């Protein structure tokens, strides 16, 4: 089954309707991505030179790292994913974007929220809950902006000409509900005046982190990949049935992961999570097989094009999800918990999977909605190699280092300093990867920014042309 777009509406018209909302979403997202990676790099410098930021409170490791993490998720991944989602909905519906001004307003609200949240973390006003550090003012803005974009998305979805749903519809539509529910729940409970007592706070935090970083990213990433992969490969999506199976099992099982095995909570909670994690292997494998079968035999050279981004992204999804799920196996968690391993897996999910797929989609979509070519197509290709290579160089040392650190921490006779030292060695290697990813992100930012400038210049020119055009004087009949 291929996206059934029986060109009844001119695609140019659809793309034009998405232009301003997508520019607003992608432009900010690309900037946040660069800022996030730069902050992450600044944070990790503390491990190279411990006293580097001793006099600079807002770049101390904990603050800078938290700000970098949140910028990557809330600053880049979510707005970029929403932009791609709007475009895909419009394309699949064969209808121009409904209420096109609403997502423009929402995008600006969203970026304002991210700005407030980031500044709050850096000045020490974070909430202290991992992945939910943004204070109330920022959270309210983010939620309002998300709901506005969801309204447009649902309206466009409802206006579809072909009533039959394509698999990308399922994933992306479910993702709308998923974020709205989990983000609002976590904020209402944790960022309120009366949060629940004691360790329940941590449980709700883990529930949110899992639902965002595992389920939501999977829904969005796979939803987008399953739109582009068949199109580019020129082959229909391999199996609608398998996809449905993967979709349902991902939602029903994936959402139960998240509680670490050694957590100081009643034992049934980690046990349920371990079981959920075990079952989550099923959708990961199923969706991986569908993607593999879809691209198998496709005669498309990719060399850093969108196809490459998508393939790398789906591969990262399978590998990083399996690693993520393994964290909840009680036997492994005793070694892996509290090491750099979990950090590495999260970065792989965010950079190798989500960022990869989103960058690929942006490079594919932008030239269409702007009706002009990318200003630097070579940088777009370079972007692929930098982010792919950078992510691997960033993440794999962390995984190995984390494993060694965990094994050393298990040996009570090995001094703690030795366990830290071995992890530090690998962490320092991984910094090189971080630098490469940052360079890759700069390629994206350059492309998006220059494109926006060109478009704005074009607008100004057309306005000037309209103003300075000689007025048509009506012929005077004598």
């Amino acid at each position: 089954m291929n996206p059934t777009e029986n060109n009844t509406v001119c695609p140019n018209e659809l793309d034009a309707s998405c232009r301003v909302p997508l520019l607003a979403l992608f432009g900010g997202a690309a900037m946040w991505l660069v800022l996030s990676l730069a902050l992450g790099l600044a944070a990790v410098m503390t491990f190279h030179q411990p006293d580097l930021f001793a006099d600079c409170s807002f770049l101390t490791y904990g603050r800078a790292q938290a700000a970098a993490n949140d910028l990557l998720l809330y600053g880049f991944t979510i707005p970029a994913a929403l932009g791609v989602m709007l475009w895909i909905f419009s394309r699949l519906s064969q209808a121009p974007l409904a209420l096109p001004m609403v997502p423009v307003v929402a995008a600006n609200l969203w970026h304002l929220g991210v700005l407030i949240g980031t500044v709050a973390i850096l000045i020490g006003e974070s909430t202290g809950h991992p992945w939910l550090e943004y204070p109330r003012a920022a959270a309210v803005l983010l939620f309002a902006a998300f709901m506005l974009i969801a309204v447009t998305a649902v309206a466009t979805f409802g206006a579809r000409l072909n009533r039959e749903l394509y698999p990308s519809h399922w994933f992306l539509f479910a993702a709308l509900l998923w974020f709205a529910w989990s983000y609002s729940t976590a904020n209402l409970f944790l960022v309120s005046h009366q949060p629940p007592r004691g360790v329940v706070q941590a449980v709700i935090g883990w529930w949110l982190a899992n639902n965002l970083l595992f389920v939501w990213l999977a829904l969005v990433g796979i939803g987008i990949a399953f739109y582009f992969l068949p199109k580019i490969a020129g082959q229909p999506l391999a199996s609608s049935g398998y996809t449905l199976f993967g979709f349902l099992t991902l939602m029903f099982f994936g959402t139960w992961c998240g509680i670490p095995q050694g957590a100081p909570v009643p034992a049934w909670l980690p046990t349920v999570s371990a079981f959920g994690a075990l079952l989550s292997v099923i959708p990961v494998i199923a969706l991986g097989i569908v993607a593999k079968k879809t691209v198998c035999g496709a005669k498309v050279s990719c060399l850093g094009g969108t196809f490459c981004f998508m393939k790398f992204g789906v591969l990262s999804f399978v590998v990083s999800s399996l690693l993520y799920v393994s964290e909840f196996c009680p036997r492994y968690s005793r070694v892996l918990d509290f090491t750099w391993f979990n950090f590495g897996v999260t970065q792989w999910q965010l950079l190798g999977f989500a960022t990869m797929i989103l960058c690929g989609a942006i490079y594919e979509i932008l030239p269409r909605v702007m009706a002009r070519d990318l200003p630097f197509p070579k940088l777009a290709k370079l972007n692929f190699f930098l982010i792919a290579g950078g992510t691997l160089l960033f993440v794999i040392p962390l995984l190995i280092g984390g494993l060694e650190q965990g094994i050393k921490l298990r040996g009570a006779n090995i001094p703690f300093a030795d366990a830290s030292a071995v992890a530090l060695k690998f962490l320092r290697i991984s910094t090189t990867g971080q630098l490469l990813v940052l360079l890759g992100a700069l390629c994206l930012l350059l492309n998006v920014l220059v494109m926006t400038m060109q478009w704005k210049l074009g607008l100004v020119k057309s306005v000037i042309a309209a103003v300075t055009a000689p007025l048509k004087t009506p012929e005077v009949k004598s």
Partner: protein
Amino acid sequence: MKTGFSVFAAAFIALGLSWCGLVYAPIQQLGGTKQTVVLQSSDKWPMQRTGDATLGLQVYRANACAACHTVQIRQTGVVHTLSITDLGVHKAVDFKAFMTSLMAVPELMKCSNSIVGSLNQWNGSVPKLLFSGEESAMVSMLGDKLKAVGVKTEARVETTGADIARGWGLRQSVAADYLYDTPVQLGSLRAGPDLANLGVRAPDVNWQLQHLYAPRSVVKSSTMPAFRYLFSVRKVGAQPAPDALALSKAFAPSAGFEVVPTAEARQLAAYLTSLKANVPLYEAPFTPITATK
């Protein structure tokens, strides 16, 4: 999945189920937790922190200390041990013979080898570890039998695990320990050591302050960043400030200047020294659980 409604319904049910399981149920079970009682004592646990320490928790949050430190001890299990503390009127040789005869009791048979074996080279010095294993029933039965013949023993419950062997804590952390923390910051990375029992390991506030200002002045191998921004360096007045840090030469400011902790630094140090998880609880028992028989 033919309609938007069916997709919505599937997602709603899936997330709703996990919401009930991982959000609603824990709130019902743990949200109303109150102070518990320390085992074999009337002390309450946990104690409310002092004012400074409560503010210190917020300093800990603001500087995201939890990015590198966990506040959570893990434990692999417990071992029940029985030691002889006093042989009474018996001689060691007689006692050995008595123990050998005692091993005929069916319940004790399975550990006869380890007990008799451990007594082989024994010359009668006390305390002597007699039994160590996972079954608490064995300890109480053996203790009763020995008490009947006038031998005094001590039964202990000892916790095991790498964290405990490292001296990071005496028992695993349990939900009750975090009752008064808002926000609860368990941490997920041990770039630095665990802090759950720091108040017992390093109870000296001045040590904490010095460690915050210049970590490597007190722990050579430390990789912790210095938190100099929590301190102010100022000219020594007519008299040195009473709370100025006593730093070694390499870390001290230039002559005529002194390092004084800000209120935030003092609060953070108060919080760090308030971190204690050193009492036995019902869900995390450890020695001594039964008194000397």
